[in-house]
């Protein structure tokens, strides 16, 4: 701008320069609109400034707070014994899609192109810690019929809403929405949104489960771009080999019968929160529940 004003002053005099200055000042007042970045390919690392306990060490037993559970889901979760994961059949079970990107994993996103046309037909995501690959088709193909096989990562298709990559997934195996035994059914569907803000990727997942959730569960996470850090920062995927780890009788399934979970009282004592709130339910997700919580805490 200094150059323009100098030129104006030289050619038209001081007043012209002042008018130009006025014009520039007025134009500078016009708020700018910027185009957002939307290249989501690359390597991303998670930030754990929210839900850190749930996502890294894991919440203790009987902490289902903030989940819109059905009565059936609550009963399932209360009957769950952490020893379940040592059972041969469950040892190699990985986090399913509704939970996996909450975990302490890095994420690599790449584009898959058609060899003949060079058009992008899919985006691939490699979820580092559990060695999971998922494919998100963007070539317009439909989801398979209901009877098609279910997998940990399900079947995904994607479209763009402006700078946001929107992914819809079905055909996910049964798993959990919280890894302390809160179940997720194989009828679950998800809508994920990946939005890039500078070198931060905001990830939102909207989970609908007609069996175990009374209303959709929403989670949002943030990732930071890691490209350029090299392969040394990735943990190599190791195939899971199940093996006998405990002296439990063959085919025994660790569990608690209704009313016998010893961790209910422990969870209350450790957190200072009454079991009514700890065991979740849609009403616990809303601001007005604070009034009920105050009543419970006052008792």
């Amino acid at each position: 701008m200094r150059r323009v004003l100098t030129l104006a002053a030289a050619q038209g005099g001081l007043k012209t320069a002042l008018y130009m200055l006025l014009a520039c000042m007025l134009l500078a007042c016009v708020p700018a609109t910027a185009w957002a970045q939307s290249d989501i390919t690359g390597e991303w690392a998670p930030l754990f400034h929210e839900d850190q306990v749930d996502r890294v060490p894991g919440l203790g037993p009987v902490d289902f707070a903030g989940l819109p559970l059905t009565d059936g889901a609550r009963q399932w979760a209360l009957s769950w014994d952490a020893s379940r994961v040592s059972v041969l059949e469950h040892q190699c079970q990985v986090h399913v899609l509704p939970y996996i990107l909450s975990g302490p994993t890095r994420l690599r996103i790449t584009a898959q192109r058609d060899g003949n046309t060079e058009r992008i037909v899919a985006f691939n995501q490699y979820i580092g810690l559990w060695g999971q690959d998922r494919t998100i088709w963007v070539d317009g193909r439909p989801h398979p019929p209901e009877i098609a096989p279910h997998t940990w990562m399900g079947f995904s298709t994607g479209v763009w809403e402006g700078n946001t990559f929107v992914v819809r997934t079905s055909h996910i195996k049964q798993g959990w929405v919280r890894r302390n035994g809160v179940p997720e059914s194989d009828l679950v569907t998800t809508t994920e949104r990946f939005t890039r803000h500078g070198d931060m990727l905001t990830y939102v997942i909207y989970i609908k489960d007609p069996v175990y959730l009374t209303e959709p569960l929403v989670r949002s996470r943030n990732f930071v771009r890691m490209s350029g850090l090299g392969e040394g920062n990735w943990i190599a995927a190791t195939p899971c080999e199940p093996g006998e780890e405990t002296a439990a009788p063959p085919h025994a399934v660790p569990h608690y019968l209704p009313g016998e979970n010893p961790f209910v009282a422990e969870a209350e004592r450790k957190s200072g929160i009454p079991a009514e709130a700890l065991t979740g339910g849609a009403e616990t997700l809303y601001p007005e529940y604070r009034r009920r919580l105050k009543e419970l805490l006052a008792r």
Partner: protein
Amino acid sequence: MRSRFVKGGLKGGLKTALYIVLPATLMAQVPSPRAQSPRDVTGYWVSVVSEDWHWRMVTPRKGDFTSLPLNDEGRRVANAWDPAKEKPADACKPFGAAAIMRVPGRVHITWADDSTLRIDTDAGQQTRRIQFRTLATRGWRVTGRGEIEWFEEGRDAPPPAGPPTWQGYSAARWEIAPDPAKVRNAVFFAGGIGTTPDGAGTMVPGTFGSLHVVTTKLKAGYLRANGVPYSEAARVTEDFDFRTEDDGTEWFTVSTTVEDPKYLSAPFVTSTDFRKEADGSKWSPTTCAAY
């Protein structure tokens, strides 16, 4: 204007008029921020507390700094927090702009004028004024040494004079993605050339975008109600992403980054989810002290 025409003649007068009218005309051609809004963002929105439930629905215990990137000074000040010594004037400390969107409650979004978005909260009865101004670009990037660093390019329009407040001074801009119907075959997204309706990288028609907000001039407050501090040097960057889910419900997620050289060792990043409500029937104004 009349004397100018008389003194400088018709040519001079026209020249003067041109200098005044041209910028005004150019300004008139630029839609206002309200007109640029990619969707109607006004209305009542409720925060759905499915994250950090233990740290939001109740006041965490003293010394519980889980997931906060506090530096030594931040920990020292937070550990010195004594609720018994809080003065009435401290009651709104947990409701400042660095924390308010994380507080369970409802927000009411309206346009105060064509370039000012107003956000009222029932929790703490706070009012935020989001003014559309020129902003610098900030974010993380990877250096040549392979380290992540926070960078800043350009400069923000300077904030107005005045004392710091709980909600500070918020400057904003829309970050609007090009409408695929208007920008055919443009290589501006990861899908490259895939802009055909049923081809690779299908783009949903319409205008989409984010609201980018930077807040400064904050009065010192609490990041969490258990006395975790942020200082007057804090800068809050927010990206609001609005959307409609397949079931027709409207949502926004606000990603909030708090930088504070005094109490934080790294930017503190959270993302908070709000769902639109049909009306204000559940609006429940509560003072800071009564919350």
